[in-house]
């Protein structure tokens, strides 16, 4: 980790200026999204009232809506979005695989299976369910990666996706078996299975917040090491990078980020896939910039999707997990169709 960055050759002068400015701009956009998220909703509340709710809380109905509904979901959106964006960037950088993504790698099904089994078999309920979700997500990610990278050849995009699909099939079978026998579990899992920022107990967020923050900090520090990994294992080792250490730390980061994000908001597809690709268009391949960009853009995508979900169906809300899946799948397919898919 003490490695000095072998930064990718020649960032152009334009890019050297553009990258910090762009990051500031992205942060400003995120600020805008956060403001929108606490002021827009099916209950129309004047901006002045929103401001008053934040600074002069009077306990009235409108103030309560802002404080106990909109602020928590905004915080959740920012952190979960940042975590998923970072997790995607980390997975793609580590595996040098453009399709690596928490959802494709079976994290969602692992968490779902753990939630169902622990709530039905072990009787876990309420906020305590966060731990099974966390552990299930982590185990699934590790299992899929281990299966996909087996053998001498590197883990190719197809392999990881297939390993994820195979594991997801088995876990889904188990989940289906349990919920068919237990109406109560089915009723719970059908709502949990849709990734959402509302209806989650904010207590859950506070429980996983330390893990989220630790994962985000750890990952943001890994830019230089990931740059070395991008050169290939042999070259990286000859430059002094300790590849096993880097891989182990990255695995810890992925587990912290995916586990905590899925535990807090439920399964959310494709954010981790799309965001690093958009970030790469802006920053180029340098991970020191790619990672912070991925975090900020991920937060923007999730809060913006959440706001859109409140507006798109009048009088009702569309969960953020649905929106990201419908927006993300076409991007995934476009990536699969592009000729450069095999390279990164």
């Amino acid at each position, binding site marked *: 980790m003490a490695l000095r960055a072998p930064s990718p050759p020649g960032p152009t002068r334009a890019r050297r200026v553009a990258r910090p400015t762009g990051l500031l701009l992205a942060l400003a956009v995120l600020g805008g999204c956060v403001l929108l998220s606490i002021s827009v909703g099916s209950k129309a509340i004047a901006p002045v009232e929103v401001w008053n709710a934040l600074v002069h809380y009077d306990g009235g109905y409108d103030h309560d809506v802002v404080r106990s509904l909109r602020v928590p979901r905004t915080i959740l959106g920012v952190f979960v979005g940042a975590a998923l964006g970072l997790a995607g960037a980390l997975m793609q950088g580590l595996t040098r695989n453009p399709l690596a993504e928490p959802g494709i790698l079976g994290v969602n099904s692992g968490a779902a299976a753990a939630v169902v089994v622990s709530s039905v078999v072990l009787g876990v309920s309420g906020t305590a369910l966060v731990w099974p979700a966390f552990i299930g997500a982590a185990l699934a990610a590790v299992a899929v990666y281990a299966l996909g990278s087996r053998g001498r050849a590197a883990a190719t995009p197809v392999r990881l996706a297939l390993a994820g699909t195979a594991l997801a099939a088995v876990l889904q079978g188990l989940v*289906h078996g349990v919920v068919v026998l237990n109406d109560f579990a089915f009723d719970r899992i059908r709502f949990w299975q*849709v990734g959402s920022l509302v209806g989650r107990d904010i207590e859950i967020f506070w429980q996983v917040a330390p893990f989220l923050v630790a994962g985000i900090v750890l990952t943001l520090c890994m830019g230089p090491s990931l740059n070395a990994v991008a050169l290939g294992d042999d070259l990286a080792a000859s430059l002094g990078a300790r590849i096993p250490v880097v891989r182990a730390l990255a695995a810890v980061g992925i587990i912290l980020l995916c586990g905590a994000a899925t535990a807090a908001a439920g399964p959310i597809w494709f954010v981790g896939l799309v965001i690093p690709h958009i970030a790469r268009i802006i920053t180029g391949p340098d991970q020191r910039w790619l990672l912070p960009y991925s975090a900020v853009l991920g937060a923007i995508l999730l809060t913006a999707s959440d706001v859109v979900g409140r507006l798109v169906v009048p009088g009702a809300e569309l969960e953020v997990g649905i929106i990201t899946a419908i927006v993300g799948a076409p991007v995934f397919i476009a990536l699969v169709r592009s000729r450069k898919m095999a390279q990164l």
Partner: protein
Amino acid sequence: MSDTLSKRPGPARSHAPHGTVPVRPLRGRLSFLARPRTLAVVLVLVLVSAFTLALSVSVGDYEVPLSAVPAAIFGYGEHLDVFFVQDTRLPRALTALGVGAALGVAGAVFQSLSRNALGSPDIIGFTSGAATGAVAAILAFGAGRLGVSLGAIAGGLITAAVVYLLAMKNGVQGYRLVLVGIGISAMLSSVRDYLMTRAELTDALGAQIWMIGSLNGRGWAEVAAVWIAFVLLGGVLFAYARRLRFMELGDDTARGLGVNTRSTQIVAFAAASALTGAAIAVAGPIGFVALAAPQLARRLTRSGGTTLVGAAAMGATLLVVADLVALRALAPTQLPVGVVTAVIGGTYLIWLLYTEWRGGRA
């Protein structure tokens, strides 16, 4: 070195390929190659599935002794025996056989058309599309039995077509097909989840069971439907078996051998899709039989290409066994058979990937 060489079989007396025996009945007016190993495997599979069928007809809360089963099937014996066998258990088991055979054949055809072990309806989005179509029909339109079946078929066909078109770019490549299928399936699964959260609990439960695939309560109407479809569409595919095996050698080679590749592709794809649709209409989108059956059959018969007969026998055996497990594993509760096939099939897929990648092959 010379020892091992000398142990190799000498040049065969006939010019038949290894492992085949030329058969010329009717004084040579008909002539074809038979593979004794394939015949033996198919025979064993038929015996196993017949025995499992008898077993699943006999066991249950009301036990029919195995020795009484054959008589009861034809309406003789004790009144209650005949009632349970003829009215409930036999149609269910025969549906399982038919659906399994149909899925096995369709899977084999899909795999040989895409020249890819993973080109089965499960991976290319057919199953996922059918599940979504059925769930939409139940929850959004409140459809009845027939409407749900039609919704499932439409969903499956549309999804398969979309996946196929999106994967097309200088021809369809196997892996692109697989990846596009995975992406579309992910999107559809979140659409299903959305519909589930907006429905009443009882409706959602019904949709959930249909979505997994189940043989509970299937009667003679379903038996007739699936077997008629299997005989008609399977017949077409069996007639195309030779051409399909040539197609596995590559388009150019197949053309060189006199196969009209385009029409073969279209006819086989249409018939296999319709067959899958029929199986799904009867039993719901039962997963992984179409993926695993042709591969298992191929490994057992040690044949170089897909064998449609072997795949059909294997599919039927797999589903009959899986249904017996689904019936008895948590008796008296009946699991949907799709749960069993997903767990078994998914594990098999993991094993397949695990062993194929061990040697470092991609």
